[in-house]
């Protein structure tokens, strides 16, 4: 066991709550000694549950958790060599700063002199020297956070767990604390597991980032990996800004999107397979189209196409600037192509709305991802006596020819294209109601995930603009539903 390089091992952990929902769905993670690992995800993704399972406040439904090679899945929190910094600090209001920090040491019955020394050292580490006698409720948020950190590190834990520790602080304070936490990590040399929903925090602080969504780990990697090579649409969309487009992998290193063929560096996606293409807004080169013809023009050095844009056989495409916003360091522009694809571009140069611009992207900046779902929703269904078909918890009218030769009660497979599902503003207008669960902008359309009230996920492609959490009514026209006997799929 001594050779085990991992201080924390999480093996196939599931956590199911009483309502049947999985907060953790087969989560596995290994953390090396001394690493700074961030668990990143939107609220409700299971990141806090994972942390609480490691801390011992929650017990995994199945799977196991090892600390230093020892199974602690069911060990109570007070017997684990970890300490936690809580989201709302959780300082004891009836104790002063000194006694808060000394709480753990007093439980261990250490000598008063040792306690004094250790508390002083911990408070110094957290930059809170001189506050020993203060009541905790007279401290500011940032000071309380420092006391909470001191209270955790004074016990010399091997792992420090931090549950969104900076979320209650204002932006400036948050930045200062980020730097301090990073320094603290270096000084202490212990393992930090840090939970946050703030991607910038995750990228700044961590050695490795674990991106989670819906109880599952989406990707584990260094901040650069996560940013430059997102493995799926969720990660690409969640981390930073990105252009996500549907494309086709023609063959290795050739991808088609936006009606053009581009060189790329990815291989192994097969031939003529649908893929998702991710391009970061800062990776797109942009220039005024008219500069192309004129070449280098005196007086326009600042905006010089010849010098700025990489030379070589790159695929270029063109569009018109729709909007341009100054973002401090760069300008953020939305550019619309002739065939209605919209690109988000960040550049140091300003191109006013209405400007015709050319764009290109280096092959290594094109990130290809396997498409998670193609163009059809597939559901299991059942033919009913009234000629309708029951699936996803409702009865739907279908074209009679679709169920020709099928007996009532027969199980069928239902296929509905993403494009053909209509969403209504008013829930009552649809046969089903649900909520917009996830939105992805694909350059020329939105790809939505609709979660129905019965818990089914529908994928919908639409040009209409919806917001996360919007309530919608779902309408599927009979012509959009194709039915197949599902014998094949059952085998």
């Amino acid at each position, binding site marked *: 066991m001594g050779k085990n390089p991992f201080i924390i091992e999480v093996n196939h952990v599931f956590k199911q709550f009483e309502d049947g929902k999985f907060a953790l769905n087969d989560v596995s993670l290994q953390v090396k000694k001394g690493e700074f690992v961030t668990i990143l995800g939107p609220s409700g993704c299971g990141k806090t549950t994972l942390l609480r399972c490691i*801390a*011992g*406040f929650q017990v995994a439904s199945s799977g196991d958790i090892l600390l230093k090679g020892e199974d602690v899945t069911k060990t*109570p*929190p*007070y017997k684990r060599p*970890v*300490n*936690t910094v*809580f*989201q*709302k600090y*959780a*300082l*004891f*209001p*009836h104790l002063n700063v000194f006694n808060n920090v000394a*709480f*753990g040491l007093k*439980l*261990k019955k250490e000598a008063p002199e040792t306690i004094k020394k250790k508390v002083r050292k911990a408070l110094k580490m957290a930059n809170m020297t001189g506050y020993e006698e203060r009541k905790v409720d007279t401290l500011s948020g940032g000071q309380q956070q420092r006391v909470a950190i001191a*209270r*955790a590190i004074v*016990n010399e834990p091997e792992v420090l767990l931090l549950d969104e520790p900076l979320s209650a602080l204002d932006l400036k304070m948050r930045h200062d604390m980020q730097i301090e936490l990073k320094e603290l990590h270096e000084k202490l040399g212990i393992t930090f597991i840090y939970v946050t929903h703030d991607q910038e925090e995750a990228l700044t602080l961590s050695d490795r980032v674990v991106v989670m969504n819906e109880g599952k780990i989406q990707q584990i990697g260094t901040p650069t990996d996560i940013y430059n090579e997102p493995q799926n649409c969720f990660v690409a969309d969640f981390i930073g800004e990105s252009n996500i487009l549907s494309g086709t992998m023609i063959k290795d290193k050739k991808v088609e999107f936006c009606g053009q063929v581009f060189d790329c560096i990815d291989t192994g996606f097969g031939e003529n397979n649908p893929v998702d293409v991710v391009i970061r807004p800062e990776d797109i080169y942009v220039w005024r189209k008219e500069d192309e013809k004129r070449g280098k023009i005196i007086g326009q050095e600042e905006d010089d196409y010849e010098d700025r844009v990489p030379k070589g056989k790159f695929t270029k495409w063109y569009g018109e600037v729709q909007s341009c916003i100054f973002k401090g360091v760069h300008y953020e522009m939305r550019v619309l192509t002739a065939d209605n694809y919209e690109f988000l571009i960040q550049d140091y140069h300003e191109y006013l709305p209405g400007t015709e611009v050319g764009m290109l992207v280096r092959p290594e900046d094109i990130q290809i991802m396997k498409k998670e779902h193609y163009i059809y929703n597939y559901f299991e269904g059942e033919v009913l006596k009234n000629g309708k078909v029951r699936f996803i918890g409702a009865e739907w009218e279908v074209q009679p020819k679709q169920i020709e030769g099928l007996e009532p009660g027969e199980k069928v497979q239902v296929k509905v294209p993403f494009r053909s599902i209509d969403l209504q503003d008013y829930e009552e207008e649809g046969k089903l109601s649900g909520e917009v669960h996830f939105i992805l902008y694909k350059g020329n359309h939105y790809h939505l995930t609709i979660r129905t009230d019965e818990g089914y996920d529908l994928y919908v492609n639409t040009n209409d603009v919806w917001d996360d959490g919007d309530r919608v009514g779902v309408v599927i026209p009979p012509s959009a539903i194709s039915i197949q006997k599902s014998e094949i799929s059952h085998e």
Partner: protein
Amino acid sequence: MSKVIQIFSSRRTWAWPYILFMLLFVVLPLILVGVYAFTDIDGHFTLHNFAKFFSHSEAIQTFLYSVMIAVFNTAICLLIGYPAAYIMAQEDFKTPKVMAMLFILPMWINFLLRTVATVELFNMLGLPLGEGALLFGLCYDYLPFMIYPIYNTLQKMDNSLVEAAQDLGASRWQSFWKVIVPLSMPGVYSGVVMVFMPTVSTFAIAELLTHNNIKLFGSLIQDYITTTDLLNYGAVLSLVLLIIIALTSFFGDNNNDGEKGGMI
């Protein structure tokens, strides 16, 4: 016209009926108690009544006995009430509302009726009335006043404090004594005051549950007050009781920090 509106829209105007009520039914009786205590039957100033109390061993004994009964009752209520409140405040306890309701429910009925029913219950079970019955009756009557404020503070307590204690190495037992108990003290103080004060001055419960065999201080006061020529002496006893109660509630308030706890 505008002046009339001004008068009626002023908050001070609306306070007058309440002020009048309190003057009539709270302040005036207190003054009367004071006046009677310091005068003799003819209305002359005297300290004789006080002197009588301090040399009247029966009154002092009854007084001490009442305080003792009140202390016992408060202790029993605390011993029963704290765990009950603690269990109800647990997160995984599914029906705290129902439980709280069940504890509060007896308060819907007049306490005299409840006490009479308790007497009947003891008779039915063949249990003797007396000190035991008295303590049982007091506890039965005042338990909700102990449970409710404690339940309130416990329920408002941030569960992450308990988790923090456990995280720092405290077992369940240690986190209970070092975090939960100290933080619930405001509720405990409210409960103690609310049980102790009315128990010291109780008389009807004692009369009913002991067949008038045990006299509490409240009964004593009642006896003197209703006897015309001893009214002034009764007033002294009332005043003494009042001072004791004032002292206990002052003690409670001090530790209350004025925010947590309380009945509501």
